[in-house]
Structure formats: structure tokens, C-alpha cells
């Protein structure tokens, strides 16, 4: 039996003077015990709404959600005793110190003053915040803030952890470091549902990935399975200048077996091909003949970016460029 299970969740909003928004449109999801599932999707896909339903913050219009056999909608109080939540929406108090924030969370889990303090000290050490523990969070860097936020979610060692875009807005180094932390957490047997716009993050942290778009899961599987589902080889080019966009597109479409996709402000192009080596040779020949300078050219296997593009028809927000910086 899955540890976290969401079935046919529907949630609609009606913004003033606008048509109804279906934030969740029949979303179903299963996370087995002790595994990490990533909800992958662009902004507005329904990731945060899903997590908000599962962490008892909002009620869906219809559908069901169960965590370890407990009905989230019927018994939110019981659910709150076994989850930890961290992310964009569940903030820490800016006017309290790091230590005070963790102690407060412990008290509100009813650990009592002594245990709440002891646990706060433990987490401060675990997250390498000893020096900053008595400073107010307002002065924390983005990375420190995320750590204290994540620590807040771990106060009771919850069996279930929800991480909503845990690294969004972090610089590449802090993101890598936070990935290390999350990886070591999940190795302890916690069941984790995390949301991300970063394909690479899902690839690295998750046992299973659910790609969501328009409030539904449009594909699920391991990173490898998803990549295999797209199939085929790709030719990737990086140009020195991004001047002759249409010329490049024309050449790529001629030898490719699908749509040529630009990124990196039109300097980088990827196109699926049937016969890699032949296509690569011809493309490089024509591009050079057209007088364009190549920075890099080669064949590669599909990435999650390609999967995402193929499934949704659009790129994963602006995550692409950002993500490369982190890698």
C-alpha cells in the first residue's frame, strides 16, 4: 500500500473577473514508503496546490488524500502529527533567531520546553548553523534561510516530509549543498514528496518522478524510464553568436526527425535525429558553410528537459539556464 496517496484531486479557483482556474484537475499520485517522489512541473502546474492539500492547508473541491492510512481531509489533526513541511509557503519567523524558530516549532508539536530546546540544538548543529543560531532570521542568507526552514520540517523526525521547491532561488553552490542534505535525510528512511521546477533536481533526488502540467500528472516513472520514453538521439549545437536564427532552424529541421528547439538565447539548439553520426556531420557542414561559427556540436542522449518538452509542448519555465549553472 502506498504511504502517500492522492486520488482524483480537483481544486478550482475563481479569480475576480477571470474565468475559473483549475489548479488541480484530477491529479492522482502514489508515493511508496521510504521513497522520494518528485512533482516536476512549471510554475502554475499545480505542484504547490498538491502539497497544500496533502499538508492539510487547503481542502480540495473533490478527490481523496490518505497518508499512512489516515484520511487527510477527515483527520487533519492526526496528519499534522506525522508530517513535516518546508518550502515556499510555510515560512519561518523573520523576527526570531534560528534557534527560537526551531524551539517554537518543537513547542507547537507539544514536545515540551526541554525536549524542544534539545531538539533545536541538535538540528542547529546538524544544519551547520551554530554560529548563526542566535541571529534573527531576517539577516540570514538565502541558503541559511532554507536550511532553517528545512530544519523546522524535521523537528519531530516525521515519517513523511513535504518539500516545496526546496532550492528555488538559491545560488548554484547552496543548491548543491542542500541536495546533499536532502539526500542524507532520505537515506534515513523518510518518505518524501518534493516539488521542483528543476529537472536536474528531480533527476538527482527522486526515486520516481511525476511530471505535472495543468493540474494533472501527465507522465510518471524513474528518470531513466522517462528519458527512454522519449527515445532516440539528439544533435546539440552551440553557436558563438545567436544571429541567424532562421538559417539554423532551417538546417536543423532538414536533417532532424522533429522540432528544433533553441535555448540559451538562441545560441544552443537541440534537434532529435534518426541517424546520429550522419546527421551530425551534415548539420555541422551546412552550418559552417553558412558562415556561422560553432562553439560546440555533438550527439547526446535525451535529458529530462527533452522529456518535459515532448510531454508538455513547452520548456520547463526558465529552469533550463539556471539549472546549467548549478550543474
Amino acid at each position, binding site marked *: 500500500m502506498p504511504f502517500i496517496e492522492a486520488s482524483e484531486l480537483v481544486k478550482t479557483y475563481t479569480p475576480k473577473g477571470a474565468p475559473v482556474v483549475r489548479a488541480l484537475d484530477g491529479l492522482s499520485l502514489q508515493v511508496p514508503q521510504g521513497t522520494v517522489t518528485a512533482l516536476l512541473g512549471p510554475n502554475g502546474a499545480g505542484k504547490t496546490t498538491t502539497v497544500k492539500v496533502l499538508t492539510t492547508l487547503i481542502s480540495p473541491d473533490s478527490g481523496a488524500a490518505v497518508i499512512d492510512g489516515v484520511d487527510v481531509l477527515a483527520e487533519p489533526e492526526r496528519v499534522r502529527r506525522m508530517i513535516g513541511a518546508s518550502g515556499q509557503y510555510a515560512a519561518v519567523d523573520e523576527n526570531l533567531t534560528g534557534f527560537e524558530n526551531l524551539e*517554537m516549532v518543537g513547542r*507547537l508539536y507539544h514536545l515540551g520546553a526541554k525536549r524542544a530546546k534539545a531538539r533545536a540544538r541538535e538540528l542547529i548543529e546538524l544544519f551547520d548553523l551554530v554560529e548563526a543560531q542566535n541571529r534573527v532570521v531576517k539577516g540570514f542568507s538565502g541558503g541559511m534561510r532554507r536550511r532553517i526552514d528545512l530544519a523546522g520540517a524535521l523537528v519531530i523526525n516525521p515519517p513523511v516530509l513535504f518539500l516545496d521547491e526546496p532550492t528555488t532561488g538559491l545560488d548554484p553552490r547552496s543548491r548543491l549543498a542542500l541536495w*546533499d542534505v536532502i539526500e542524507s535525510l532520505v537515506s534515513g528512511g523518510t518518505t518524501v514528496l518534493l516539488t521542483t521546477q528543476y529537472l536536474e533536481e528531480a533527476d538527482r533526488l527522486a526515486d520516481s518522478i511525476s511530471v505535472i502540467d495543468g493540474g494533472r500528472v501527465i507522465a510518471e516513472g524513474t528518470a531513466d524510464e522517462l528519458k527512454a520514453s522519449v527515445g532516440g538521439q539528439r544533435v546539440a549545437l552551440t553557436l558563438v553568436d545567436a544571429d541567424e536564427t532562421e538559417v539554423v532552424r532551417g538546417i536543423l529541421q532538414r536533417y532532424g526527425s522533429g522540432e528544433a528547439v533553441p535555448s540559451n538565447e538562441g545560441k544552443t539548439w537541440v534537434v532529435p535525429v534518426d541517424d546520429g553520426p550522419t546527421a551530425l556531420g551534415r548539420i555541422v557542414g551546412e552550418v559552417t558553410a553558412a558562415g556561422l561559427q560553432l562553439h560546440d556540436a555533438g550527439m547526446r542522449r535525451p535529458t529530462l528537459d527533452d522529456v518535459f518538452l515532448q510531454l508538455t509542448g513547452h520548456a520547463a519555465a526558465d529552469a533550463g539556464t539556471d539549472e546549467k549553472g548549478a550543474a
Partner: protein
Amino acid sequence: MSTVGSSGTRGAGGGLDARGASATLEPDPGTAIGRFLSDGWIATRRNLMKIIRVPDILVFTLLQPIMFVLLFTYVFGAAIDVPGGYTSFLMAGIFAQTVVFGSTYSGSAMAQDLKDGIIDRFRTLPMNGAAVLVGRTNGDLVINGLSMLVMMGTGWLVGWRVESSVGGFLAGVVLLLLFAYAFSWLMAFLGMSVRSPEIINNVSFLVLFPLTFISNAFVPTENLPTPLRIFSEWNPVSALVQSARELFGNVPAGTPVGDAWTAQNPILTVLIGISALLIVFVPLSIAKFAALGKK
């Protein structure tokens, strides 16, 4: 720049294995009431910390009352002639105005906490939702108490004296604070009903400024134009001011009192007002908080 943990902590044996062998921490045994009180105290403590940490609040709480006492005493005091002297007349008005405005903080702070996501953090925890509101309104009570102390000190320096008894004095202070506390619940409710804290600040200024000024707080009302005079006589702020004046013994013979029932029975009026505010807005606010995720 900071790093998170060290890079050698991946895998089960790492130092960052936060769950480790230890199981989920169970709550201390406790009753629902005990937990409610504990949650209420933790929420209150958080709001008190904010008073200490955010200088704006402290300045607003402590300096503004001093400024008002001094400005009104020395600027208007010379021009307004009332029995017993203007300072004596004025102080109850300043007390009432300050605590009423102090209560609006519950509204804007509630709206701000919602916007910042702190409330969402609380709502993922097994804490009592009503305790969040108790903590909020308690915070205002403390702010108002501090303001009262500062104002009384300043008033005393410029010549204000309590001319009743210790009992009267205490009753006056309690009545002012209790009214403000009840008003905080209304404001907390409004704070959960608006989209941004600025709306609360603007609306409460637009409503409360006239409400406190078209009253007997700063001037005797018998010479006001008739519509304003009638309004001020029925104005609950006037009843609050009049109650405080009576309890502090600041109503010398010849002080004009309006004909309205509320002006004739100010203390009873304020007690009814306090009860009505609490009876309506405590349950309404708690219900509103519980329904935050339902819209």
C-alpha cells in the same frame, strides 16, 4: 557564502542522517486545555519577541503617546477652556484613542502573517488554531499596556492626577484595556478578511480617526454643530472616554455630559460593547481561521 553541511555526508552513514535510528518524536502527554494554553503562550511569546525586535512597533507604542500628550496639552490646552483644566480633561481621551489605535495592530499583523506564510507554517503543525488568535490579541494587550504606562507617566509629569481612588484607577485602566482587547478580536477578524496589511492600516485610519475625533476625547462636545454633537454623544468612543474620566475622577463639577443614554450610562455602555465584541468576534475569528483553507 555558506555551505550546507559538508560534502562527505551522503549515504546512510553520514553525519546528517537526521532521522537516524531515532523514531518520530511523540508529543508530551497533555490535555486539550493544557495544550491550548501552551500554544496560546507560545504564540503570545512570539508576538512579544517581535515588539522587542522591531523598533518601529516600540517607537509607535512608546513615542507616539508621549507626543500626543505633549502636543495636545500645550497646543490645544491654552485654547480650550474646560472645568478642572484641559490636561485633566484630555488624558482619558488620549488613553482611549491610543488603545483603540493600538488594537488595530492585530488586524495588520494578522494580514501580514498570512501574507508571509507564518500562518501556513502554524497550520501544518498540530497546534490549536484559536491559540494563534489568542497570541495575537494578547500581543496587542501588552502593547496597549505599555502605551498606557508611558502615557500615564507623561500625563503625570504635565500635571494629570487621578482624583478618585486606587480602585477607581485600576477599574479605569482595566476597562480601557479590556475594550481595546475586545476590539483586537474584531481587527483580527478583519485582518483575515483582507488581501494585504496596507488595507487594514488605511481603512482603520479612515474610520477610526474621525471616530475618535468626533467624540468627547479632545474637546467638549456641547458646542459642536448639531449632527456632529448627536453623533459624538452616541459614539462608543465617547462612552469609553467618559467612563475613564469618571473612574479616574477627572470629571469636576460643571463638566458637560450629553443627553444620550450612552452618555448618561457610559460604563454600562462600554461593558455592553466589550461583551458584544467578544461574543461576536471571538467565535467568528476562530471560525474564520479554521476555514482559511476552504476558500
